[in-house]
Protein backbone atom coordinates (compact mmCIF):
# COMPACT_ATOMS: atom_id res chain seq x y z
CA UNK A 1 0.00 0.00 0.00
CA UNK A 2 2.72 2.55 0.86
CA UNK A 3 4.46 1.70 -2.43
CA UNK A 4 1.20 2.25 -4.42
CA UNK A 5 0.66 5.57 -2.64
CA UNK A 6 4.22 6.65 -3.34
CA UNK A 7 4.01 5.80 -7.04
CA UNK A 8 0.65 7.54 -7.41
CA UNK A 9 1.88 10.59 -5.55
CA UNK A 10 5.05 10.75 -7.62
CA UNK A 11 3.08 10.46 -10.86
CA UNK A 12 0.71 13.27 -9.88
CA UNK A 13 3.54 15.45 -8.61
CA UNK A 14 5.53 14.93 -11.80
CA UNK A 15 2.53 15.68 -13.97
CA UNK A 16 1.76 18.91 -12.17
CA UNK A 17 5.40 19.95 -12.24
CA UNK A 18 5.56 19.35 -16.00
CA UNK A 19 2.34 21.31 -16.51
CA UNK A 20 3.65 24.30 -14.59
CA UNK A 21 6.95 24.36 -16.41
CA UNK A 22 5.61 23.78 -19.91
CA UNK A 23 2.41 25.75 -19.75
CA UNK A 24 2.83 29.11 -21.46
CA UNK A 25 -0.78 30.33 -21.54
CA UNK A 26 -1.20 34.07 -21.14
CA UNK A 27 -4.82 34.39 -20.01
CA UNK A 28 -5.93 35.28 -16.50
CA UNK A 29 -7.28 31.77 -16.18
CA UNK A 30 -3.94 30.32 -17.20
CA UNK A 31 -2.21 32.48 -14.60
CA UNK A 32 -4.66 31.36 -11.90
CA UNK A 33 -4.16 27.74 -12.88
CA UNK A 34 -0.39 28.08 -12.79
CA UNK A 35 -0.53 29.82 -9.41
CA UNK A 36 -2.70 27.06 -7.96
CA UNK A 37 -0.38 24.42 -9.35
CA UNK A 38 2.64 26.18 -7.86
CA UNK A 39 0.91 26.29 -4.47
CA UNK A 40 0.04 22.62 -4.71
CA UNK A 41 3.66 21.77 -5.48
CA UNK A 42 4.94 23.86 -2.59
CA UNK A 43 2.41 22.30 -0.20
CA UNK A 44 3.38 18.81 -1.32
CA UNK A 45 7.06 19.56 -0.90
CA UNK A 46 6.42 20.89 2.61
CA UNK A 47 4.52 17.71 3.50
CA UNK A 48 7.31 15.50 2.21
CA UNK A 49 9.86 17.53 4.17
CA UNK A 50 7.75 17.30 7.34
CA UNK A 51 7.09 13.60 7.15
CA UNK A 52 10.64 13.02 5.97
CA UNK A 53 12.10 14.53 9.13
CA UNK A 54 9.69 12.64 11.36
CA UNK A 55 10.47 9.41 9.58
CA UNK A 56 14.17 10.07 9.94
CA UNK A 57 13.69 10.66 13.67
CA UNK A 58 11.68 7.47 14.08
CA UNK A 59 14.36 5.58 12.20
CA UNK A 60 16.90 6.98 14.65
CA UNK A 61 14.79 5.68 17.56
CA UNK A 62 14.86 2.22 16.04
CA UNK A 63 18.58 2.50 15.50
CA UNK A 64 18.94 3.41 19.17
CA UNK A 65 16.91 0.33 20.07
CA UNK A 66 19.28 -1.82 18.04
CA UNK A 67 22.31 -0.24 19.68
CA UNK A 68 20.90 -1.04 23.12
CA UNK A 69 19.53 -4.48 22.33
CA UNK A 70 22.37 -6.37 23.95
CA UNK A 71 23.06 -4.40 27.09
CA UNK A 72 21.46 -3.25 30.31
CA UNK A 73 19.86 -0.17 28.75
CA UNK A 74 17.58 -2.19 26.44
CA UNK A 75 14.67 0.01 25.40
CA UNK A 76 11.17 -0.75 26.60
CA UNK A 77 9.03 -1.63 23.52
CA UNK A 78 6.20 0.58 24.80
CA UNK A 79 8.64 3.48 25.09
CA UNK A 80 9.52 3.04 21.43
CA UNK A 81 5.84 3.14 20.40
CA UNK A 82 5.13 6.18 22.53
CA UNK A 83 8.20 7.96 21.18
CA UNK A 84 6.91 7.36 17.64
CA UNK A 85 3.54 8.82 18.61
CA UNK A 86 5.26 11.82 20.15
CA UNK A 87 7.40 12.48 17.11
CA UNK A 88 4.42 12.22 14.74
CA UNK A 89 2.65 15.06 16.54
CA UNK A 90 5.73 17.20 17.12
CA UNK A 91 5.06 20.60 15.53
CA UNK A 92 7.14 21.48 12.51
CA UNK A 93 8.73 24.46 14.21
CA UNK A 94 10.14 22.32 17.05
CA UNK A 95 13.56 20.84 16.20
CA UNK A 96 14.01 17.09 16.34
CA UNK A 97 15.74 16.26 19.64
CA UNK A 98 18.74 14.08 20.36
CA UNK A 99 17.94 10.58 21.61
CA UNK A 100 19.60 8.37 24.21
CA UNK A 101 18.69 5.35 26.30
CA UNK A 102 18.07 5.73 30.02
CA UNK A 103 18.85 3.07 32.65
CA UNK A 104 15.21 2.07 33.10
CA UNK A 105 14.70 1.46 29.37
CA UNK A 106 13.09 4.81 28.69
CA UNK A 107 14.18 7.17 25.96
CA UNK A 108 15.68 10.55 26.68
CA UNK A 109 14.78 13.31 24.24
CA UNK A 110 17.14 16.25 24.62
CA UNK A 111 16.88 19.73 23.21
CA UNK A 112 20.25 21.29 23.96
CA UNK A 113 20.75 24.93 23.11
CA UNK A 114 24.03 25.32 24.99
CA UNK A 115 25.94 23.96 27.95
CA UNK A 116 23.63 25.79 30.34
CA UNK A 117 20.34 25.68 28.45
CA UNK A 118 18.59 22.42 27.81
CA UNK A 119 15.25 20.67 28.04
CA UNK A 120 15.16 16.91 28.56
CA UNK A 121 12.12 14.66 28.32
CA UNK A 122 11.79 10.98 29.14
CA UNK A 123 9.43 8.66 27.32
CA UNK A 124 8.98 5.35 29.08
CA UNK A 125 6.34 2.69 29.42
CA UNK A 126 3.49 4.97 30.45
CA UNK A 127 1.85 8.12 29.11
CA UNK A 128 3.34 10.10 31.99
CA UNK A 129 6.41 11.90 30.73
CA UNK A 130 9.11 13.10 33.10
CA UNK A 131 10.96 16.25 32.11
CA UNK A 132 13.65 18.56 33.44
CA UNK A 133 15.13 21.80 32.24
CA UNK A 134 18.15 23.95 32.88
CA UNK A 135 18.31 27.61 31.92
CA UNK A 136 21.37 29.28 33.36
CA UNK A 137 20.92 29.22 37.12
CA UNK A 138 17.24 28.34 36.83
CA UNK A 139 16.24 24.72 36.74
CA UNK A 140 13.25 22.54 37.39
CA UNK A 141 11.41 19.34 36.67
CA UNK A 142 7.93 17.94 36.31
CA UNK A 143 5.67 15.23 34.94
CA UNK A 144 3.02 15.65 32.25
CA UNK A 145 0.42 13.40 30.68
CA UNK A 146 0.66 12.64 26.96
CA UNK A 147 -2.57 11.73 25.18
CA UNK A 148 -0.93 10.84 21.88
CA UNK A 149 -2.79 13.58 20.01
CA UNK A 150 -0.75 16.64 20.84
CA UNK A 151 2.40 17.61 22.68
CA UNK A 152 1.65 18.65 26.30
CA UNK A 153 1.59 22.40 26.70
CA UNK A 154 4.25 22.44 29.42
CA UNK A 155 6.61 20.50 27.19
CA UNK A 156 6.10 22.89 24.27
CA UNK A 157 6.59 25.87 26.55
CA UNK A 158 9.73 24.35 28.02
CA UNK A 159 11.26 23.58 24.66
CA UNK A 160 10.40 26.98 23.26
CA UNK A 161 11.83 28.70 26.32
CA UNK A 162 15.13 26.98 25.69
CA UNK A 163 15.37 27.37 21.93
CA UNK A 164 13.86 30.87 21.85
CA UNK A 165 15.62 32.20 24.93
CA UNK A 166 12.37 33.36 26.49
CA UNK A 167 12.58 33.33 30.27
CA UNK A 168 9.81 32.66 32.72
CA UNK A 169 9.23 28.93 32.31
CA UNK A 170 8.69 27.43 35.74
CA UNK A 171 8.79 23.90 37.02
CA UNK A 172 5.63 21.94 37.77
Amino acid at each position, binding site marked *: MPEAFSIGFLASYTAINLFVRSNNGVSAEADALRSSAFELIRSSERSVALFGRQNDAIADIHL*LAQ*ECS*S*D*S*TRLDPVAIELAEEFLRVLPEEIPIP*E*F*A*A*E*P*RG*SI*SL*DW*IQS*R*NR*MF*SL*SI*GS*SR*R*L*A*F*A*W*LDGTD*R*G*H*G*VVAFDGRCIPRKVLEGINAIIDGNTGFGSA
Partner: protein
Amino acid sequence: MGILASGLPDLVCNDEDLSRFLTSSRYYNTTMVKGVAFLPSLADRESSVFRHASEPLDRLISLGKTYAAGDRNLHGAAIIKTSVVREVGLEVRADEPPPFHAAISGWPSASDPDLELARHKELANVLASASLLVRFGEVL
Protein backbone atom coordinates in the same frame (compact mmCIF):
# COMPACT_ATOMS: atom_id res chain seq x y z
CA MET B 1 41.31 9.16 57.66
CA GLY B 2 42.22 5.75 56.25
CA ILE B 3 44.12 4.89 53.08
CA LEU B 4 42.62 2.60 50.47
CA ALA B 5 44.35 -0.07 48.40
CA SER B 6 44.72 2.46 45.54
CA GLY B 7 46.65 4.75 47.87
CA LEU B 8 43.84 7.30 47.94
CA PRO B 9 42.27 8.47 51.20
CA ASP B 10 38.95 6.86 52.00
CA LEU B 11 37.33 10.26 52.22
CA VAL B 12 36.71 11.86 48.81
CA CYS B 13 37.75 15.50 49.00
CA ASN B 14 35.76 18.28 47.38
CA ASP B 15 38.54 19.28 45.04
CA GLU B 16 38.97 15.83 43.57
CA ASP B 17 38.12 15.18 39.93
CA LEU B 18 35.71 12.38 39.16
CA SER B 19 35.47 10.56 35.83
CA ARG B 20 32.20 9.18 34.55
CA PHE B 21 32.97 6.92 31.60
CA LEU B 22 30.89 7.29 28.45
CA THR B 23 29.96 3.96 26.92
CA SER B 24 27.61 5.30 24.27
CA SER B 25 28.04 7.95 21.60
CA ARG B 26 24.53 9.09 22.56
CA TYR B 27 25.75 10.29 25.96
CA TYR B 28 27.45 13.35 24.50
CA ASN B 29 27.35 15.56 21.45
CA THR B 30 29.96 17.67 19.70
CA THR B 31 30.16 20.15 22.55
CA MET B 32 29.14 18.57 25.84
CA VAL B 33 28.12 15.65 27.95
CA LYS B 34 24.38 15.03 28.28
CA GLY B 35 22.54 14.61 31.55
CA VAL B 36 21.53 11.06 30.71
CA ALA B 37 25.18 10.04 31.12
CA PHE B 38 24.96 10.68 34.87
CA LEU B 39 21.66 8.98 35.68
CA PRO B 40 22.02 6.33 38.41
CA SER B 41 21.65 2.63 37.74
CA LEU B 42 18.39 0.97 38.70
CA ALA B 43 20.18 -1.78 40.59
CA ASP B 44 21.91 0.26 43.26
CA ARG B 45 20.62 3.80 42.61
CA GLU B 46 24.19 5.03 42.28
CA SER B 47 26.30 6.44 39.48
CA SER B 48 29.68 4.78 39.14
CA VAL B 49 32.68 7.11 38.81
CA PHE B 50 36.44 6.93 39.18
CA ARG B 51 38.60 9.27 41.19
CA HIS B 52 40.72 10.36 38.27
CA ALA B 53 41.27 13.56 36.34
CA SER B 54 41.56 13.93 32.56
CA GLU B 55 45.31 13.26 32.84
CA PRO B 56 47.25 11.09 32.64
CA LEU B 57 45.07 10.08 29.72
CA ASP B 58 46.52 6.61 29.20
CA ARG B 59 45.78 5.64 32.80
CA LEU B 60 42.27 7.05 32.52
CA ILE B 61 41.64 5.01 29.39
CA SER B 62 43.10 1.92 31.03
CA LEU B 63 40.77 2.31 34.02
CA GLY B 64 37.79 2.68 31.74
CA LYS B 65 38.63 -0.29 29.55
CA THR B 66 39.44 -2.53 32.49
CA TYR B 67 36.67 -1.69 34.92
CA ALA B 68 33.91 0.30 33.26
CA ALA B 69 33.32 -0.62 29.66
CA GLY B 70 32.68 -4.35 29.91
CA ASP B 71 31.33 -5.44 26.52
CA ARG B 72 30.54 -1.88 25.50
CA ASN B 73 32.64 0.58 23.55
CA LEU B 74 34.48 3.26 25.47
CA HIS B 75 33.96 6.67 23.91
CA GLY B 76 35.31 9.05 26.50
CA ALA B 77 34.74 10.43 29.97
CA ALA B 78 32.94 13.24 31.70
CA ILE B 79 35.17 14.92 34.26
CA ILE B 80 33.50 16.71 37.15
CA LYS B 81 34.57 18.14 40.49
CA THR B 82 33.35 16.38 43.63
CA SER B 83 32.29 19.75 45.03
CA VAL B 84 29.81 20.24 42.17
CA VAL B 85 28.19 16.90 42.89
CA ARG B 86 27.83 17.73 46.57
CA GLU B 87 26.50 21.22 45.84
CA VAL B 88 23.39 19.71 44.23
CA GLY B 89 22.78 17.54 47.29
CA LEU B 90 24.32 14.28 46.13
CA GLU B 91 27.07 12.40 47.93
CA VAL B 92 30.35 10.95 46.72
CA ARG B 93 31.88 8.04 48.60
CA ALA B 94 34.89 5.88 47.94
CA ASP B 95 33.86 2.43 46.78
CA GLU B 96 36.90 0.21 46.22
CA PRO B 97 37.54 -2.28 44.76
CA PRO B 98 38.09 -1.72 41.86
CA PRO B 99 40.90 0.80 42.44
CA PHE B 100 39.97 4.48 42.26
CA HIS B 101 36.27 3.60 42.14
CA ALA B 102 33.69 5.82 43.84
CA ALA B 103 29.94 6.17 43.75
CA ILE B 104 27.63 9.14 43.43
CA SER B 105 24.78 8.36 45.77
CA GLY B 106 21.89 10.06 47.51
CA TRP B 107 19.75 10.48 44.41
CA PRO B 108 16.33 11.65 45.64
CA SER B 109 13.59 9.10 45.92
CA ALA B 110 9.86 9.47 45.48
CA SER B 111 6.87 7.18 45.65
CA ASP B 112 6.02 8.28 42.12
CA PRO B 113 8.70 6.76 39.84
CA ASP B 114 8.09 9.34 37.11
CA LEU B 115 8.52 12.24 39.51
CA GLU B 116 11.63 10.54 40.86
CA LEU B 117 13.05 10.30 37.34
CA ALA B 118 12.23 13.96 36.71
CA ARG B 119 14.17 14.94 39.84
CA HIS B 120 17.10 12.79 38.77
CA LYS B 121 17.10 14.37 35.32
CA GLU B 122 17.19 17.86 36.81
CA LEU B 123 20.28 17.03 38.86
CA ALA B 124 21.88 15.12 35.99
CA ASN B 125 21.47 18.20 33.76
CA VAL B 126 23.39 20.28 36.27
CA LEU B 127 26.18 17.73 36.47
CA ALA B 128 26.40 17.54 32.71
CA SER B 129 26.59 21.31 32.31
CA ALA B 130 29.45 21.46 34.81
CA SER B 131 31.48 18.58 33.43
CA LEU B 132 34.33 18.48 30.97
CA LEU B 133 33.97 16.20 27.97
CA VAL B 134 37.07 14.13 27.22
CA ARG B 135 36.70 12.19 24.00
CA PHE B 136 39.09 9.36 23.46
CA GLY B 137 40.76 9.56 20.08
CA GLU B 138 39.11 6.46 18.75
CA VAL B 139 36.29 4.29 19.97
CA LEU B 140 37.92 1.78 22.28
